[in-house]
Every structure is written in C-alpha cells, then in structure tokens.
C-alpha cells in the first residue's frame, strides 16, 4: 500500500496482544499518523481489567469518507498485527478471513495460573493457514538485545510500516516519535523503529 492510498474502504486493522505489552501505544501511533494523513479513524482498545495480563486487542478502522464505529465486524479484518502467537490466533478465529495479512511476534507470553500453552508449532501453522500472508518478526528478542523489552512495540511499529501494509510511510511516524520521546530517549527509539523496518526488508 502506498502512503496516502487506501486499498479498501473501510480498512480494518487489529493489534492483538497481552495486557501490559503496550498495544495502546502502538495503536495510538498508527491512529495519530493516519489522522495527520487526512484519514477518518476510529481506534478502540480493550480497556479495563484485561489490561492486567488478560488478552487485549486494539481495533483501528480507517476510511477516507466517514467515521465508522470502532469495533471490527466478525470476519472482516484486513490486517492483523499480532504481538503474541496465541493472541493472534484468537483474533483470527473471530475476525479473520481468507484475505487477511498477519504480522506476528512469534514470542509466546505464557498465561498465568497454570493455564497450559498449546504447541507453538501448531499455533503457527494455524495462523499461516488462516492468513493470506504471514510474516514473523522477532520483536521481543530484538528488544531484549537492545536492553529492554519495552522497545518491542516500536520495533513492531517499524516492521508494520516497513511491510507497506498501511497507507503510511516512515515520514508519517518520525515526527510522532520525536513528540513522544523527547530528549535522549528519542535516539534509541528511532533505532528500534529502524530495526523493525530492517526486519521486514
């Protein structure tokens, strides 16, 4: 997708993850960048107690024409940004369809309370089967290499922008990063962002 050009009306994006992973930060960047590019956007994040380690999802509906309600219709997502494999699959089961594109962090986050995690290979195969295209980006691993898991969001943001699946280019994100991370933390976040782009190129 080229910056500024929307391929479908509305275009439905879901960011699926675990409470605490920071999907609200990611959806905020994408939403703000889209508004700056002149799109009509609704961003709905799971709010409330699920943020305490439960499963969370942010839904972003993008349009050129009108403001839609925020939550995606069943089976109507176009792009799935998975911050965690099982959460990716959970969203696919509800909102997936044969055309959906999935960009996934393959690093599992284990549920607490002794709940068993399914076989990762099986989860990955299901994701691939249900998506028209799947890319894996090891954002948690890369972030830990950079010294703090906190960077995984920004790496993932870079990967999503680099993959060209949103009507946004790098330039739409830079000013937002500068605004959000003032001073010396900007440098490392820019590095994280570029790392993400590099992972998908």
């Amino acid at each position, binding site marked *: 997708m080229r910056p500024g050009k929307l391929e479908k009306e509305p275009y439905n994006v879901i960011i699926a993850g675990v*409470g*605490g992973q920071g999907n609200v930060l990611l*959806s*905020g960047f994408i*939403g*703000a960048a*889209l*508004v700056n590019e*002149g799109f*009509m*956007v*609704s*961003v*709905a*994040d799971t*709010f*409330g*107690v*699920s943020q*305490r*380690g*439960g*499963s969370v999802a942010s839904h972003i509906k993008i349009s050129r024409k009108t*403001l*839609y*309600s*925020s*939550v995606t*219709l*069943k*089976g*109507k997502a176009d792009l799935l940004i998975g911050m965690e494999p*099982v959460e990716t*699959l*959970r969203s*696919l*089961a*509800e909102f*997936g*369809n*044969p055309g959906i594109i999935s960009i996934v962090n393959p*690093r599992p*986050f*284990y*549920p*607490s*309370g*002794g*709940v*068993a*995690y*399914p076989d990762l290979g099986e*989860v990955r195969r*299901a994701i691939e*089967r*249900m998506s028209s295209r799947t890319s894996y980006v090891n954002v948690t691993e890369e*972030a*830990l290499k950079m010294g703090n*898991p906190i960077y*995984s969001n920004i790496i993932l943001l870079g990967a999503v922008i680099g993959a060209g699946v949103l009507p946004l280019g790098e330039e739409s994100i830079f000013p937002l990063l500068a605004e959000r991370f003032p001073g010396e933390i900007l440098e490392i976040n820019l590095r994280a962002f570029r790392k993400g782009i590099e992972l998908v190129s």
Partner: protein
Amino acid sequence: MANIATLKPGSTCLLMGNEAVARGVLEAGAGVASGYPGSPSSEVIPALAEAASQTDIYVEWSTNEKVAVEVAAGGSFAGIRSFCVMKQNGANVAADFIVNLNMTGIGGGGLVIFISDDPGGGTSNNEQDSRTIAKWIDNPLMEPSSAQEAKEMIKWAYEVSEAVNLLTFVRGVGRISYTRSNVVPGELPRKAQPEAVFPEIWDRNNPRKSRFTSGPFPVFHAPLHEKLEKAREIFETSPFNSYTGPEKPELLIIACGASTSYCIEGVNELNLEDRVSVLKLGTTWPLPEKLVAKHLKTTCKVLFVEEMDPFVERSVMELAAALLPETAHLTFFGARSGHLTPYGELSTDSVIGALADIMGITYQPRDRAYEEMCVEAAALVPGRPINMCPGCPHRATYWAVKNGLSLDGRNGFVCGDVGCYSMGFAGPGFYQARTMHAMGSGTGLASGLGKLGRFGLDQPVLAICGDSTFYHAVMPALANGVYNNSNFTLLIADNSATAMTGFQPHPGTGQTATGEPAKVVELEAVCRAMGATVETCDPFDLPKTIDTLLKMMAEESGVKVVIMRHMCQLVKGKRKIAPSWKMHVDGSKCLADACGCHRLCTRLFGCPGLMVDGETGKAAIDEALCAGCGLCAQICPAHAIIGEEV
C-alpha cells in the same frame, strides 16, 4: 496525549472520547471541574488538570462522587459554570445529594455531569444503567454517539442546564469514552469567568436565585415538572436528534449513544439503505415526544437499539400506548422481543443479527471452510486469566494473608472491596477475598460480622481496602466498627495511588490533581484518632507481615488496622524506579514437577514473571516480564529462586 488546552481550533486531532469531553468543558467556559476516578471515565479530570495551567479552570479529584458533585454545585450556586465526572457506580454515591439538587435547582452557572457507563463490565463490578437516575429525579439527559458529538453535547448541555435551571446529565459508555477518533476542536472562550459570589441577599421575590434549600418541597416539586416540560420542548428541535433513511421505511430503528453507528453500519452491510431508516436520539430524557410520534406514523415496525436497560424502548412504548389507536399497527422489536439483550455491550454484529432476523435476510460473513478453521483455532486457544502485575504488592499482601490465616487455623476470612485488590477473589489473590460489593463495603460487612461472636462466630474477620477507597467510603465504616466495639482487622493496601484507574493522586499522596503539593491526610493518624490499633508493614517482608497479622487476629476485641505499605509497581515503573533484585532460578535446586502443589511458583503463586522452561522443565524467570521485586525468592520451598540485590 496532547494538552487539550493547546489544540488548534479547526484542526483535526485524534482524541479519546474522555479527552473530547474535557475539551468540551473548556470550550463551554466552565470554571470548576471535579470528579472521582473510575473507569471508563477516569481520563477526563487528568486532561482538564493538565489544561489548568493554560486556562483559569479549577480542577480537583474529590474524595468521592458525592463530594465531587457538591463541589461542582457550589461553583454553580456562586454563578460559575461547573462540571463533574464519574463512572456509573459513582452516580449511586452522588445520588443522595442529586435527589435534593433537583428540588433546589442550580445557581447562576450551568451544571453538567458526565457519567460513563460500562456495558460489558470490562472495568467494573456491575453493569448498571445510570440513565435511570435522570428519569428518577426529573432532570434532562443526553447521550453522545461519538467523541466529536460528546464535545459538542457538553457545550450544549450548559445551555440547556441554564435555560431550565437544572443539573443536566451527559451519559457516555466505555466505547465512547475510550475510542480515539477524529475530533475538530472549537474555539476556547476569551471571556474571563464571572466574579463568583454566593447570593448574599435574601430576595423575597426571587427565592430561587438566592436560596438553595430542598424544602419546603411542596413549593419546588410542581415547578420541577414545569422545568422538565420546558426541557422536552427544547429537545424537540435539538440538533443532536437526526434522521437518515427513506421517508416511509419498512423498519424504523430508534437508536442512541454508541449504538447509533452500529445501526448505520449494519444497515449498510446488509444493503438495507432503501428499506430501513435510523432515528438517532441524542436527547433521551425527557423524550422528545412530538419528534418520535411523527416518525412512528411513517412505519409499521420499530427496532430499538440501545445498550443495557430498555430505557428509550420503554419511553417510546409508553408514548405509543398514549397515542392509541393511531399506533395500533406498530410492531416493536428490541430487548423486549429478545432481538437484542438488555445486558452486555452491543456491536454492529448484534444489530446485524437483529436486522437479518426481522428483515428475513441470511448473513454469512465467511464461507463454511474458513468458519471450520476458525472453530478449530478457537479450540486451540487457551483462556488468559487476568492477573496482578509482576511485582504487585497486592500479591505479597494476599500471600501473607493466605499464610497468616492458615497458621492461625480458625478459618478466618477476608471481606473484599473494589480496586486492583478485587482480584483477590480469584487465583491472583489465592481466593482470599470472599466478598465484593461497593466501595467501602468490605469494612462495613466486617463491622457487622465482627459483632457475631455472641452467636458463635469464632472465625477471625478481616477486611481489605485500598488507600483511595479508604478515603472514599471506608472511613464511616471504620468509625462504625470502633464505635460499636466490633472485632475485626482491616488491611489497608496502601500502594500510594488509585492504581486500578490510572494512578491518580488522592488525599494520602501529598499532591493535588493539578500537581500542587497538598497536606497528607495520614492513614495511620486517621485510624489511630478513630480509636483503632494500628501497625504498618511492608508486605514484601513476608515474615514480619505474617507475624503482625497473627498478632492482630489473636486480639480478642476491638478494631485493628494493618497498613500494607508498598508502592504500586506500575507507579515505580512510571517514576523509573529501578528493580531491586536481579532474579534467576538455580535449575539444580528446582524441584519442578515434584514441587508442592505441582509447581508452587507458577501454579499457585502465579506471578507472570515466572514460567516453566520448555527444555529443562524447571522454573525460569521471564526476563521480559519480571519486575525484580524479589518476592518469589521468599516463597520457593527449595530456595531455587535466587535474587541478587542490584
């Protein structure tokens, strides 16, 4: 998030509904804003507090919602436009004041309350529909359908409030409060606030302007109904009521609030634009009857789409009954017919379901083969129970309670309360909290239960509450317990913040909503002054905490308070306080499957920072999550979890 006072009028911004509400308050030129934190409404006051340095608005977190409305009403009485915000449960707390405020009316400044309800209960322990209160007390009510509209509606609500001299409600829902979407800010008023003055002189000819007493109510009750009729007249031509669709639709949808966009999307998705119309009501109480009656005449079928109680549905059906026989041809669909539910959150999908059934359409968003894959996928996906955060002090508190109660051995129990520590009723708190109702109820229940020794209740009675909750509603219950010589132990989980709702300051934090230093209302001093025995512990010091609990429970009478003081881990994170410990597991010591309760640390203790290493089968620390609090090193029976101080 940008400072809402500095947004450029006419530009387009991505704003959360709660921020848009706050901007509306500024655009309306309100001078006083108060509230108590409660999701889904929690972000309005912080947005205003941040704007306070650029504008002349006074913003406060009040100790509870009743006080908050009183503070705002004070502003109104003195001639200043005032604003108050709360979640649905807060409306109950505020109700005691509000049910008298309808009689007195407001002062010279308009008074608007924004209440955000929580259909689906994502962030609440109930799912009540607060609209009922507007009807109950005969005050006007509006419901925005988007963030932009919420902003405009707040402004207009001030005009209505001042025109009819009544408090005016704007009711949001979580989906409006938390959705971020395009909002175009308007101008901020240039005028300074009028001079605040409490009407000094008793004016016999105009008592309404100079006295605010709810009695003698026979004098005020009849005029209240006149005011309500005046509001109805205003609502008949409100710009927030609109109609889209054919002139004579096969089906008329009457919708309000967040549901409106679900209806428009549902109609489009099913290609029913030529057959179905949508009457959106932005003003829902009092019902604009002439407007509704006009549209009822154009159709044979009506579907109500609104979240939770069939509030509009009942008002319209009442109207239809009054208009008989003209309305005899109508069939109604909605909560009553079972096409939609009077509970839970609605969605475009639920509206599509209702529309498809009424219009005789089949709707299938995906083909059979894909649907089958979805079923298989769903079966593979495990649940993900919510948990306290890694490093959360409540986990330490509940671990101490669990161990303390079992060492005590008399089946003691804990009456719970509302906050992050509510999770104590489930696995994350080891099932220790056994009741959960309203703010402060745990202590009230304990006060009663602690008097039942005479009937043979010999179990130690405990209650737990958070620091913010303590000031909100626990103090009267604690005084009650001391006064009536009840016997219980209150645990105050003092994590120095209203953590559940986003770390707002409160009377114990030494800081106001706008960041100025404030006097600390000290927990220890308050409890001691009330006559309780008080001890303070750091729950991460498990042995001392357990000992203190045992000592308190052993005392045979009186009210005991243990303050469990440790800063919320997320506040530590925000303040960039580094972890205290670097953790690792000594695989050679870990008992793995042979460990108590089939892996004490991951199964029972359950901090998200602990996991099982897939290769070795031993416990491991999840580096991406561990907050380095060091607690798990104290609970491992084999001393396999090791912390090095950093």
